[in-house]
């Protein structure tokens, strides 16, 4: 028993050491036990065993370390002896590992990191649905009833968009995006302010005695110099004194504010009066969030909320239409849309890593065949297979670790590039960095890849070294390594083909989208946002305020039009393709609905004169809107072609009247029909669109985007237009100044991002596959020098030799191509959600991928083939 235990301990020692000394060590241990006598106390026995075990462990450690040091030195020598090979292998690994680590960091930071709220998995976003299943925001009264009735939610809160101009403090006016939130919003998220407190219940009451606000950490630092005395102090918000209640913690990255409210930095209480016109059930402009009660799931909450909506519909039948509810995990709201893209890219880099590993295996194999004699000699000298394996594994491990180290640097650079160039649709991208987890991933990947590529040549070398000393073994050896090598080459070509097909499909889809006519001409158009603040323009249904806003826009636009190089200038409430949504119910005069909720809905655009000219939207019939459509004159509207054709299939829409919003809203005569505009996305079908003159809308629209068409570079007029706005009203800041083409480009950001990256992966995989093919074929020719020399000497034409070698190389390439296309055909289904008007089995893409692969493979094979045909027969025969 004791002997057995000691023998097991000795297994920790390296094989060589055991072979030499295990027997003596056992005898020594036996003698030690015998001398200690049979009468050892239990404590003494335990001490003896502990000391013995510790001694063996220490010895094992030092022996293994010794071997490792020797193997490492040996490996370094071998790797240095073939610098070109080593560098190729390292570069390949570094790219494979680097791409994977960078992608891991992005996925970790964007998808896997928990949302910055307490117990975020219990937070849900709630939407109201209608008969056709369309989800919408919620009206205030519906929210009030949900809050009172829902049992599956611990807390419910709503948010809406707001804006503010910070004045005073002797500083320039500053426009900030803001949010209105109902009571309990911050408590629901689990956010505690870093300073001060959040809103109380009373402060959310309509007509609360004083105005209050909460600041973001950034606003507190930038505008108020991180002064803690700001708490309780009044600040001037759009001319009204507000008391600062609190400052939110630093690093509280409010995804809701950041992603849904354009980076809001200021919070006000919602404070709605239930009787207010904008608090109605059909005024669906509030986003609802909730925290699931303990034990309740999303499905359960959704069922309960749907039943509440059904009850509300029974109570208020004209304000709902087939109402239901949707409860979506909050994380899904932000991450759901980008998950498929990131997972696709991850799959892409994993394929790339496999290609890199098999390419390195190929390189090692190539070296293995050069080293087979050395190994044979060492085996003959008594080096055991285990020892040899260990030495070769050390070599691949060393290669992998250095590759991993360089790969981490590659990843570091790649992450910086990704963060700088990634699309704005990717949430939390700015926070992505290489952290300990990513570096751990790099290490794990290095080890895994060492196992992947280290084992192939090992089997080749260690398993068959016996007969290598006799020259007879060489031929069979090279045949069998050629088999493995061509398998690796075929595999690499297959994976390159897979990536080529995938990226080809994305390219076609993106090209199609870029070629999609948006319905307007975004070239040479500058866009600038203006959000009118101050008492004079306060959003209200007061004619004076509308007039004030009209005067402001008229003045600014008139001066802008006078600038040299400007051909047209206008303003619009929601800029097409910029992400804004402004849906209204459409009621055609003379076509009443029993339930007005069943009326069609469309996008409403409030525009100034020259809007269609500035964007190049074609007028199809009737007239455009002009300065004559002023406040107090007959109300008019212009509709798009889709609306005209769908709602007036057999009539002339011109002269008909429609109202927007409730059926009781002001009627507007249709005076013109314009072309369709892609508003919600180049890949989203066009709906109904109604354009209304700014001077005739029901209230002063204070948030508008200026669109200025120029003859030259639109950016050139940015500064003069800012200057004009400053001169007309210095309190109105101009924000988000962009060329319209950038806006259109940004709307395709995620697609472009996925396409560019996948193309890069495909190109890298293809390059690696070609390097592998070229290298393998080079060795093949090298090993057959003599045979080829003899053939040439016997009169074989050079072309025949070239054909022979070319055929040898193209066989695995063609097999790999076939396999790659097959795998692609079976797996491109995962791309479906990312493709627009391109079939996953698009024959053109497959054909192009095949042609690219075949052409590049032939090019890679041609050089070795050409070299083979130039072998000097005399020289090879002499060496024979």
């Amino acid at each position, binding site marked *: 028993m004791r002997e057995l235990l000691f023998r097991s301990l000795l297994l920790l*020692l390296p094989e060589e*050491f055991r072979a*030499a*000394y295990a027997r*003596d*060590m056992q*005898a*020594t*241990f*036996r*003698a*030690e036990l015998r*001398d200690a006598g049979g009468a050892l106390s239990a404590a003494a026995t335990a001490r003896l065993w502990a*000391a*013995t075990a510790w*001694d*063996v*462990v*220490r*010895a*094992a450690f*030092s*022996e293994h370390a010794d071997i490792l040091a020797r193997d490492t030195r040996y490996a370094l020598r071998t790797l240095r002896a073939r610098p070109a090979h080593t560098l190729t292998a390292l570069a390949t690994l570094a790219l494979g590992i680097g791409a994977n680590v960078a992608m891991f960091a992005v996925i970790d930071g964007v998808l896997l990191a928990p949302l910055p709220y307490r117990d975020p998995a219990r937070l849900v976003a709630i939407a109201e649905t209608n008969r056709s299943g369309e989800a919408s925001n919620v009206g205030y009264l519906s929210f009030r009833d949900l809050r009172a009735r829902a049992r599956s939610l611990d807390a419910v809160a709503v948010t809406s968009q707001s804006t503010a101009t910070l004045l005073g403090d002797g500083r320039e006016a500053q426009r900030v995006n803001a949010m209105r939130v109902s009571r309990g919003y911050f408590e629901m998220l689990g956010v505690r302010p870093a300073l001060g407190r959040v809103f109380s219940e009373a402060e959310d009451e309509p007509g609360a005695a004083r105005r209050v606000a909460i600041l973001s950490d950034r606003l507190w630092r930038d505008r108020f110099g991180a002064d803690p005395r700001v708490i309780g102090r009044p600040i001037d918000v759009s001319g009204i004194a507000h008391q600062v209640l609190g400052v939110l913690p630093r690093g509280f990255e409010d995804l809701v504010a950041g992603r849904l409210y354009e980076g809001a930095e200021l919070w006000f209480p919602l404070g709605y009066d239930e009787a207010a016109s904008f608090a109605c059930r059909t005024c669906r402009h509030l986003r609802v969030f909730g925290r699931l009660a303990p034990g309740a799931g999303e499905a359960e909450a959704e069922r309960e909320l749907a039943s509440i909506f059904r009850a509300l519909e029974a109570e208020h039948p004209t304000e709902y239409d087939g109402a239901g509810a949707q409860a979506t995990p909050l994380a899904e709201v932000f991450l759901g849309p980008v998950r498929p893209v990131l997972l696709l890219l991850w799959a892409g880099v994993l394929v790339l890593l496999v290609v890199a590993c098999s390419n390195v295996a190929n390189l090692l194999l190539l070296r293995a065949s050069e080293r087979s004699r050395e190994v044979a000699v060492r085996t003959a000298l008594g080096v055991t297979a285990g020892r040899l394996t260990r030495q070769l594994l050390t070599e691949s491990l060393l290669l992998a670790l250095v590759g991993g180290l360089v790969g981490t640097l590659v990843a570091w650079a790649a992450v910086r590039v990704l963060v700088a160039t990634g699309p704005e649709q990717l949430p939390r991208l700015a926070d992505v960095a290489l952290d300990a987890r990513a570096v751990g991933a790099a290490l794990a990947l290095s080890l895994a890849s060492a196992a992947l590529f280290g084992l192939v040549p090992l089997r080749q070398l260690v398993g068959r070294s016996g007969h290598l000393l006799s020259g007879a073994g060489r031929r069979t050896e090279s045949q069998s390594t050629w088999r493995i090598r061509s398998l690796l080459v075929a595999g690499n070509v297959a994976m390159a083909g897979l990536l080529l097909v995938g990226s080809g499909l994305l390219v076609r889809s993106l090209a199609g989208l870029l070629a999609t006519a948006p319905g307007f001409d975004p070239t040479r158009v500058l866009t600038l946002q203006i959000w009118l603040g101050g008492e004079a323009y306060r959003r209200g249904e007061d004619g004076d305020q509308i007039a004030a806003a009209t005067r402001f826009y008229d003045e600014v636009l008139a001066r802008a039009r006078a600038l040299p190089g400007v051909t047209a200038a206008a303003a619009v409430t929601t800029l097409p393709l910029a992400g804004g949504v402004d849906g209204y119910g459409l009621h055609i005069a003379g076509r009443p609905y029993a339930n007005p909720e069943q009326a069609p809905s469309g996008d409403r655009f409030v525009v100034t004169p020259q809007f269609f000219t500035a964007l190049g939207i074609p007028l199809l019939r009737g007239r455009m809107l002009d300065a004559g459509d002023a406040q107090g004159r007959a109300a008019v509207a212009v509709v798009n072609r889709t609306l005209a054709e769908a709602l007036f299939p057999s009539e002339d829409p011109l002269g008909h009247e429609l109202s927007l919003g409730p059926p009781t809203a002001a009627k507007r005569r249709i005076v013109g029909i314009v072309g369709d505009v892609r508003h919600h996305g180049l890949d989203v079908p066009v709906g109904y669109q109604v354009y209304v003159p700014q001077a005739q809308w029901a209230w002063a629209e204070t948030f508008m985007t200026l669109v200025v068409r120029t003859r030259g570079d639109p950016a050139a007029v940015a500064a003069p237009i800012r200057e004009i706005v400053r001169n007309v009203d210095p309190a109105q800041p101009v924000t988000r100044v962009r060329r319209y083409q950038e806006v259109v480009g940004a709307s395709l950001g995620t697609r472009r991002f996925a396409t560019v990256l996948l193309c890069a992966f495909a190109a890298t995989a293809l390059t690696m596959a070609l390097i592998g093919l070229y290298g393998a074929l080079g060795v093949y020719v090298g090993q057959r020098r003599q045979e080829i020399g003899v053939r040439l000497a016997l009169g074989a034409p050079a072309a025949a030799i070239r054909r022979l070698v070319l055929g040898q190389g193209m066989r695995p390439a063609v097999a790999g191509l076939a396999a790659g296309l097959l795998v692609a055909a079976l797996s491109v289904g995962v791309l479906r959600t990312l493709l627009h008007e391109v079939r996953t089995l698009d024959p053109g893409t497959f054909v192009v991928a095949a042609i690219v692969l075949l052409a590049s493979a032939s090019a890679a094979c041609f050089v070795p083939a050409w070299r083979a045909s130039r072998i000097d027969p005399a020289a090879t025969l002499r060496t024979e």
Partner: protein
Amino acid sequence: MARFDPSLHLPLTPAMFQVLVALADGEKHGYAIIKEVARRTGGKVRLRAGTLYTVIKRFAADGLIEESAERPDPALDDERRRYYRLSDRGRAVAVAEAQRLEETLVQARSKLALGLRRS
């Protein structure tokens, strides 16, 4: 071949030095070395098999000890044991290490004595 320079093997660990010294008066097998070291140091240095054979392996590789023929150990029933003896090089290294220790000791003593006198 270059002349053998024992100083290249210095300093030795205490265990290594004790093994060389234990072999100075004749060849021994492993357990005998352990016993000799324990006896000479009054039980203060207690080598165990793992440490001992790591040292033996290193010395054998460096040519400081040699293996003599295998034979039964009269003290251990009939078991066959491997015996080790000091080579000339090993002896030179042991002497060099002893000298090094002695010099270290002398220096330390004189320094400490000076220190004592000053205080």
